[in-house]
């Protein structure tokens, strides 16, 4: 608390700094740009830094805010604050609509669509002269007044803008620690894993895009009143690139970094004045150099240098509660029923008609030679692939058409053959993403999520490692984190894709014990595994696939001695002469 007050006091002092000097239009210009751009760049932190989605139209949202204020105040003489709200509103709505329609697309497509949006905006600003007043721009935008006190004084207005900037920095700084912010980072790190863990990735990306657009709109609105004049040149594609460069230079993943990057890039032209005409060329070169030599931005370097001075919060192992993963078995009906499930890729029938029931509280293994369709079956089960035909009923509910995150919300957990964690997040944060899945019955608030995550880590024996960045853990431990992530969501049904792959003999025995422990709590486990020894130890039932077809289904001893199964694994023995 003391710390926060100190930071606040310091901030206000900095914001009051302009009062100590005589403000020339030149200095005002620089301050004004630094503050309003920073607000827009904070939006880039959210969308690019946190969520990992490229946005090359930030200047458009900035322009929407600015034009709302300019057109609202200059002609019709509306109150500044009303036009400010309108500007943010228009930016938010456009961000939301653009996001909703295009964020299904990834990478290059998103880059291109945002560029197109930016270009169309630019064309409208220049050509729709009746409405936007065209290339000449709009002059005479008035400053607002607050509680009857007119902010026509440059210093007073700057002070107000600085306070708004602080509020925005605080918001963006705190965001990653919220459930939404954590989901954003999960989407950035591994969208598929986030989705399977219960994150509605499209929704999260749209939220990020909308927040980003809103911040840009706010920055633009303040900009318009600050400079009293705007024209289309202020909001074109190069401005969007400038915003992008600012966030990357400062460090895309930090709120402070983006403010730092913005200020530096605004001051850079002043320092590069001696370069005159080649300034912009030098700027382009700087962008390449930043990408090559400063991949995490300036703030990234600062924080990795200072990391060793920061004390991690000690974890009191004794205070961690035992993980509750019990699933009461009241219903005798099977938990999962597959009815003639098929998945075809073009002409390839990867899964060609599986019909099976999985009983509650059992371990059900799916085995078969390589390429027999096991992983495809798992992907169909948790919704990564849509079925070509057939029906999947989970816990009495038809889930055939549900998205992965919706299935996670019903209690379907999953681990992957090739581990899919959120590599640059800490172990406990990875597991917290699991804990925050929809419909998980835990108390609201971050503390409860963290407590649940720590319990899950203690369950798999990794509580001491909670604050370690997950990619620094050894392979075997990463597998356990994946299991803990699934368990933190209190699943009723767990899909495990080759959990023993790459484990040594001791680790395999630990895994067997863990699986038996889970079953003991009432969980149903559906797993793919190649290690027949392990399968024999843990399975209650086995289904065998070959070339996408189900060739056997039943008790382990029956299935493993079934002639078709032996043929599938070892080939046809009839023509072999002894």
């Amino acid at each position, binding site marked *: 608390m003391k710390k926060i007050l100190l930071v606040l006091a310091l901030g206000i002092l900095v914001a009051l700094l302009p009062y100590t000097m005589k403000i020339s239009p030149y200095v005002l210009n620089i301050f004004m740009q630094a503050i309003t751009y920073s607000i827009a760049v904070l939006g880039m932190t959210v969308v690019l830094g946190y969520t990992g989605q490229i946005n090359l139209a930030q200047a458009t949202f900035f322009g929407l805010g600015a034009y709302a204020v300019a057109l609202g105040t200059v002609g019709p003489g509306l109150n500044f604050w009303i036009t400010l709200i309108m500007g943010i509103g228009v930016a938010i709505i456009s961000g939301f609509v653009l996001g909703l329609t*295009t964020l299904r697309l990834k*990478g290059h497509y998103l880059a291109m669509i945002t560029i197109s949006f930016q270009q169309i905006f630019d064309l409208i600003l220049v*050509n729709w002269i009746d409405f936007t007043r065209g290339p000449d721009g709009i002059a005479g935008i008035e400053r607002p007044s607050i509680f009857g006190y007119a902010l026509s004084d440059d210093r007073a207005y700057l002070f107000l803008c600085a306070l708004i900037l602080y509020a925005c920095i605080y918001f963006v700084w705190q965001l990653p620690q919220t459930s939404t912010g954590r989901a954003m980072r999960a989407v950035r790190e591994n969208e598929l894993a986030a989705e399977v863990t219960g994150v509605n990735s499209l929704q999260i990306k749209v939220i990020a895009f909308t927040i980003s657009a809103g911040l840009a709109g706010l920055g633009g609105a303040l900009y318009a009143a600050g400079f009293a004049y705007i024209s289309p040149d202020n909001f074109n594609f190069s401005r969007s690139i400038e915003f992008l460069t600012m966030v990357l230079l400062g460090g895309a993943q930090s709120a402070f970094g983006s403010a730092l990057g913005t200020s530096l890039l605004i001051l850079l032209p002043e320092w590069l004045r001696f370069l005159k005409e080649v300034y912009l*060329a030098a*700027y382009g070169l700087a*962008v*390449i150099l930043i*990408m090559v030599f400063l991949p995490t931005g300036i703030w990234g370097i600062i924080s990795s240098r200072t990391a060793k001075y920061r004390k991690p919060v000690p974890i009191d192992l004794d205070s961690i509660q035992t993980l509750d993963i019990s699933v009461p078995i009241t219903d005798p009906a099977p938990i999962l029923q597959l009815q003639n499930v098929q998945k075809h890729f073009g002409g390839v029938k990867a899964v060609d008609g599986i019909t099976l029931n999985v009983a509650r509280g059992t371990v059900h293994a799916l085995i078969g030679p390589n390429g027999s369709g096991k992983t495809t079956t798992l992907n169909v089960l948790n919704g990564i692939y849509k079925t070509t035909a057939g029906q999947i009923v989970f816990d009495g509910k038809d889930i055939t058409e549900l998205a992965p995150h919706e299935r996670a919300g019903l209690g379907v957990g999953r681990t992957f*053959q090739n581990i899919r964690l959120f590599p640059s997040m800490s172990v406990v944060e990875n597991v917290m993403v699991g804990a925050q899945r929809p419909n998980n019955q835990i108390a609201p608030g971050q503390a409860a999520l963290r407590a649940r995550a720590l319990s899950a880590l203690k369950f798999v024996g990794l509580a001491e490692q909670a604050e370690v960045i997950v990619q620094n853990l050894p392979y075997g431990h990463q597998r356990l984190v994946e299991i803990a992530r699934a368990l933190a969501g209190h699943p009723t049904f767990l899909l495990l894709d080759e959990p023993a792959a790459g484990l040594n003999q001791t680790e395999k025995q630990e895994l067997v014990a863990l699986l038996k422990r889970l079953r003991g709590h009432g969980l149903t486990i559906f797993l793919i595994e190649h290690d027949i020894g392990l399968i024999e130890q843990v399975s209650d039932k086995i289904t065998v696939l070959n070339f996408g077809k189900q060739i056997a289904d039943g008790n382990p001893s029956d299935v493993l001695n079934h002639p078709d199964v032996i043929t599938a694994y070892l080939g046809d023995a009839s023509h072999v002469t002894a």
Partner: protein
Amino acid sequence: MNDFIVMNLQVLFSGLALGSIYALVALGFVLIIRATNVVNFAQGDFAMLGGFSMVAFLTAGVPYWLAILLALVAMGIFGLIFNLGVYYPLRHRSFLPVIISTLGASIFMQNAVLYFFGPQPRPMDKVFSVPGIEIGGVFMDTQYLTILGATGLLVAFQYFLFERTLFGKKLQATSQDKDMARLVGIPVAAMIAFTFIYSAILGGVAGILVSPVLFVSIGMGSIIALKAFSATIIGGFGDVTGSIVGGLLLGVVEGFGAHYISVPYKDAFAFLLLFIFLLLRPQGIFGEKISEKA
């Protein structure tokens, strides 16, 4: 009625010619996408550089045809430098840093050219000094015919190179699986360098061909590149036939849009078409839907 048909044919013809410029630049895009999985946002600036190289050689008094040859050699060198400076240091990183790096390169190239040549657009002579021919009332400008012819030739050449030569097979292998290509002894880095050189030359050809129509200007590349990239998405990301069809389609849509709806918003039609495709058929005309493997 007859006038109506002739007029529409006229619009169609110029649309196809402009579209084939987009297709040429799009081909360069596709080559780099296939070889490196990244989009080169400076691809259009290769066209701009091609135009200005031409201007430089012509100003120095070099004869027209020799100037074309020298400009294309210069483009090859630019392509190599681009590969070494912009792509190579980032080859192990994700697509995002590379995209941004090519955007930086685009800013750099435009402003470096601005410094040497100034902001004034430069006119350029047509390849053939004959004005054009008229068939059934439709006037065909020789430059437009040249553009269409040259595009056809280059597409045929590229098909031959990729499908009929061992070198082309090596390029294909590189684009499909770099590790495997390396294991069977294909010099992957050299293959990628060649791709950049070749696509810079393609861009240069497009720039030289379009210059007599659009003038040589600093910004000519950016807008062509955006259209060309839209063409690759519309045609099917990374698909050669698709990018040609997409380019032609864009040119025609733009031509008719400008003729019937609005000239100032000419550029918007291409982007609207892109929006529609991305919403309804994001995999493009020839593309296949690929889902991520778990």
